[in-house]
């Protein structure tokens, strides 16, 4: 929690400092109030003139007004600091997440990152705003009030102290007892969310299998668990309020009761002082108790906020595995070279890729084929540095990719990932997404890209053409259209190198074929790296790399591989009829 405080700006620290002074001011004024009260009480008992009472009353009101005014100013500072800190934290988390590589995103999970950016920060904001008011006020208040009443009577002091002690013990035990359950609530809410999401995404399967009842039972179980924990915590927490009320009323009764005895035993001359002391003491004792209740409230809020702070710090403290290089000048254009590249995931023992070497010249098409899990996708992900090679070197345009700035390498490579992802907005905003050398793709280039990607036909059919709306996740276009838009988006950047990670899977054959012909025709100087499942797709490639279990078992053209490489031949014969192979 304290770690997060270092993100306060100098100005906000100043606000905090001013707030401390002002809070001390309000505490002073508020503690003045009881003495006026007691003056008024004395005047009342002695039958003082109404005029005097009015004067005292007005002074007291002035104090109250002053404290209210100060509080409003404090409120302003607190609100500014709390909201400012949380806005900054959100921004820090957001840009940190932006800098993350795939590995970190996967580690945290997207859903959790979202909660951390919004909900957890809100928790911190609540704590800071509440804390700044009470955490500063409560101790000042408590100490000051105690100092004032300390000399009055030890009997009352003992009484007050024991009330406070009892209150604290009960609250703290309660909190300690219930806290673990609060953490459980979070995970149980997650399961509710998960099962519900499964139900929604799999609604067709659920219905087709008449599994509605089965699913409702599954949900019912999670619901029951969550409710049980909720019942436990809330049934315990509701003890607090009645108990605090009881302590407060009990204390005031006790003070009177004790007061009666003290006054009874006092000297006649001291009786009146004792009486007004009693009235004053009661008000101050209430303030002390309130101060301690405020303090304990923080103890209730703190554990939750600490969990949030921890979650935020985890993000801030995580370093992206992939960092910007120094920046370098490319030596050539459109060249990709792997030099003895091996790769394994950071925590894994086994290598996913081992000793891969090849070179793609400008304008060439290099294809990668192999069974699932053979490392094809991983291999091409090393080029735009989604991951970094564990050993060996990946060179683009003659320079190790690690030397480029990330923005530099991303400007050279056009990536079409396996899963086409579109942003909400319009077709145009999607095609123009991102920037190349600090600029957006021009209209000319994205229209041309759409044509090459075979997307212009369906775009032109739409009423608003390129301004047609795309909903979140691209749910209002078909899978094939989504994929074509994703391809067009990459082409619009005029990259030197295009990466297709099995990017034609949702296309029907006709479109698929036209698309690849267009790429061949229009993007002559672009180097293509293609991951594919089918021999037909890659037969004409300039270079085919055959992968098996992360190792390169074949390298060459189709004809060569048919002769030399058994794995390739196996794949090919399973797909092609005899005549076609001949």
């Amino acid at each position: 929690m304290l770690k997060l405080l270092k993100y306060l700006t100098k100005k906000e620290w100043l606000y905090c400092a001013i707030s401390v002074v002002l809070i001390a001011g309000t505490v002073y004024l508020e503690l003045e109030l009881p003495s006026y009260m007691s003056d008024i009480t004395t005047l009342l008992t002695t039958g003082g003139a109404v005029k005097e009472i009015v004067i005292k009353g007005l002074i007291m009101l002035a104090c109250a007004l002053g404290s209210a005014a100060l509080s409003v100013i404090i409120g302003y500072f607190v609100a500014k600091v709390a909201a400012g800190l949380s806005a900054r934290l959100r921004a820090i988390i957001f840009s940190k997440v932006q800098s993350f590589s795939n590995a970190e995103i996967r580690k945290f999970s997207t859903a959790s990152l979202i909660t951390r950016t919004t909900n957890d920060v809100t928790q911190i904001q609540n704590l800071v705003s509440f804390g700044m008011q009470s955490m500063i006020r409560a101790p000042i208040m408590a100490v000051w009030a105690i100092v004032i009443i300390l000399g009055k009577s030890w009997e009352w002091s003992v009484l007050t102290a024991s009330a406070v002690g009892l209150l604290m013990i009960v609250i703290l035990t309660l909190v300690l007892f219930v806290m673990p359950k609060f953490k459980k609530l979070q995970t149980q809410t997650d399961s509710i969310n998960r099962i519900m999401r499964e139900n929604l995404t799999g609604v067709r399967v659920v219905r087709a299998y008449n599994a509605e009842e089965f699913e409702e039972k599954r949900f019912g179980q999670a619901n029951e668990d969550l409710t049980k924990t909720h019942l436990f915590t809330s049934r315990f927490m509701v003890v607090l309020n009645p108990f605090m009320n009881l302590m407060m009323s009990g204390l005031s009764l006790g003070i009177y009761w004790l007061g009666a005895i003290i006054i009874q035993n006092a000297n006649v001359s001291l009786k009146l002082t004792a009486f007004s002391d009693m009235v004053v003491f009661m008000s101050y004792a209430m303030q002390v108790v309130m101060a301690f209740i405020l303090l304990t409230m923080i103890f209730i809020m703190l554990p939750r906020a600490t969990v949030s702070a921890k979650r935020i710090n985890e993000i801030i403290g995580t370093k992206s595995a992939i960092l910007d290089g120094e920046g370098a000048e490319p030596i050539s254009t459109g060249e990709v070279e792997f030099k003895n590249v091996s790769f394994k995931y950071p925590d894994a023992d086994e290598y996913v890729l081992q000793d891969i070497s090849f070179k793609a010249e400008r304008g060439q098409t290099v294809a990668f084929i192999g069974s699932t899990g053979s490392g094809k996708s991983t291999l091409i992900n090393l080029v735009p540095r989604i991951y970094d090679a564990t050993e060996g070197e990946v060179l683009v345009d003659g320079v190790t990719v690690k030397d480029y700035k990330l923005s530099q390498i991303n400007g050279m490579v056009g990536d079409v990932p396996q899963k086409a992802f579109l942003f909400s907005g319009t077709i145009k905003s999607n095609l123009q997404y991102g920037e190349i050398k600090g600029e957006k793709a021009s209209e000319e280039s994205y229209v041309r890209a759409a044509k090459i990607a075979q997307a212009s036909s369906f775009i032109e059919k739409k009423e608003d053409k390129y301004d047609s709306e795309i909903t979140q996740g691209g749910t209002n276009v078909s899978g094939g259209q989504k994929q074509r838009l994703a391809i067009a988006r990459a082409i619009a950047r005029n990259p030197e190198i295009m990466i297709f990670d099995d990017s034609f899977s949702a296309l029907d054959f006709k479109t698929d074929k036209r698309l690849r012909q267009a790429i061949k025709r229009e993007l002559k100087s672009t180097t293509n790296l293609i991951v594919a499942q089918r021999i037909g797709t890659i037969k004409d490639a300039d270079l085919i790399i055959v992968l098996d279990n992360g190792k390169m078992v074949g390298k060459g053209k189709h004809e060569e591989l048919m002769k030399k490489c058994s794995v390739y031949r196996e794949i090919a014969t399973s797909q092609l009829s005899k005549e076609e192979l001949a």
Partner: protein
Amino acid sequence: MRMGGRGQSFDRAKDFKKSIKKLIIYCKKYVWAIVVALVLALAGTVLSLIGPNKVGDLSNIIKEGMFAETGIDMAAITKIGLTLVTIYCLSAIFSYITSFIMATVTQKVSKRLRGDICHKINKLPLKYLDGHSHGDILSRVTNDVDTISQSLNNSVASLVTSLAMLFGCTIMMFLTNWIMALSAIVSALIGFSVMGVIMMKSQKYFKAQQDSLGDLNGQVEENYTGHNIVKAFNGEKQEEQAFSKLNKKLYTNSWKSQFFSGIMQPLMSFVGNLSFVVVCVVGAVLCSNEIIEFGVIVSFMIYIRLFTSPLSQLAQIATTLQSTAAASERVFEFLEERELEDESSKTLVLENVVGKVEFKNVVFGYDEGKTIIHNFSAKVKPGDKVAIVGPTGAGKTTMVNLLMRFYEIDSGEILIDDVPISNLTRENIHKLFGMVLQDTWLFEGTIRDNIRYSELDATDEEIENACKVVGIDHFIRTLPEGYNTVFSDNTSISVGQKQLLTIARAMVENAPMLILDEATSSVDTRTEQLIQTAMDKLTKGRTTFVIAHRLSTIKNANLILVMKDGNIIEKGTHRTLMKQDGFYKDLYESQFTSKHAEVIET
């Protein structure tokens, strides 16, 4: 979620009442528990109202006895003291029981709300679910129900006690002394009306804060989901600009609403002090005229505190109730969505079908007035294989939607064994079809449970047999916990293996007819062959509808339905269609012939 939030600003008051009313009706089941809670709350309030009177007596006795020769009447003090102790304890117990009951009711209500939403999902037409964002529905289950539960928990009991306290206090004050009562109430009301004005002004910032938080959440969600693309396309700057714009808006709304809620408390205590002074002054005047005793003033000092605190509580409750209203509006809106037609009156049950399917003049469109399937008729003999082909976006899944009655046809009839499916319950139809879809849906549970799924009577042996037939048994056994491996996002199971699991699931279901989606994207050839063999085994002897991509499937089909732009434009066998020289021939030639063929299959 964001969309829903915006429309609500109109007609707030009416919506407010309507939503709260619905919520109250929803809680009807717990009416007795709530009544008990309320009675106890009232009792507790009455007790705490007697308190000040007694404390007043106490200080009167002390003051009188102070200079009297007999001294203070300690016996009387003890008596009052003990009464007060009893009163305080009782009132604490009452208030705890009230809170306990309310907390329980609240949790039960939230549980029921969540359960009802889950139940509702199964009752809604797919048309609704396809057209609404999942995130929005999820947010209703968690966020909105949470909001309701939190506010119910805090508000209802304190609403009642506050109101009771307010009325009780007013009555007690008037009973004690009407002049002082009047002055106390007037001064308090002046203070509170000032506060009311501030609250009204600040309300919009609270709303704006929620809205901008929603907007920000949306942007963050989209950005994190598409993180790879953002990076690959150097979109960081663009995203950060969008983010910081929303973040700034949230900041502004946030500090403003925070400010207003922060100053409420100090203003409140000022009002309390104001009332205190007024009471003292008026009391002093009355006292000096010997109209009242000193004890009355002491009682009033406590009354005034009891009077102002429920007023401030009410103010807070009003704000929480506003958000409760908004949340329950969203929940009930969902619960009141039009459900699928009730089918309890349908008694016809079709079992042991031979698998004859007939389409008779079927007309269908997703949107009213936009018919995509025009007057389609076809007959499918038992055991036939029907291939559905066509380019992307041609609407091949429409056929699945109609056969399974996920969507209702506009006119015409689909018959199974000569029985119109509209005469059957959906449950019955679903039982007749096994289904394997392209997007392989599995839930987080063990592999065994996933394969057994709703066929709860399937034995472990049947499950393992199905897996053996499909050829995934060996793979499952290599997993550390075999069939008991819990499937989740982190389990490393490839798309192809998932597909095999769904085939095994269909095998266990053992339905007389089948619907298959043959797409084999992102699957390597070896796995694809496995899948193919598994599917062939599955379709043996069953009437099968296949969304086909493989040449062999298409060539062997007894009937091919060619779809384009949603409509079925040609039908026949491979041979007859080739002769027709139409769209099918064109499609076929572009894909499966010539030397450049994308040799996808054989």
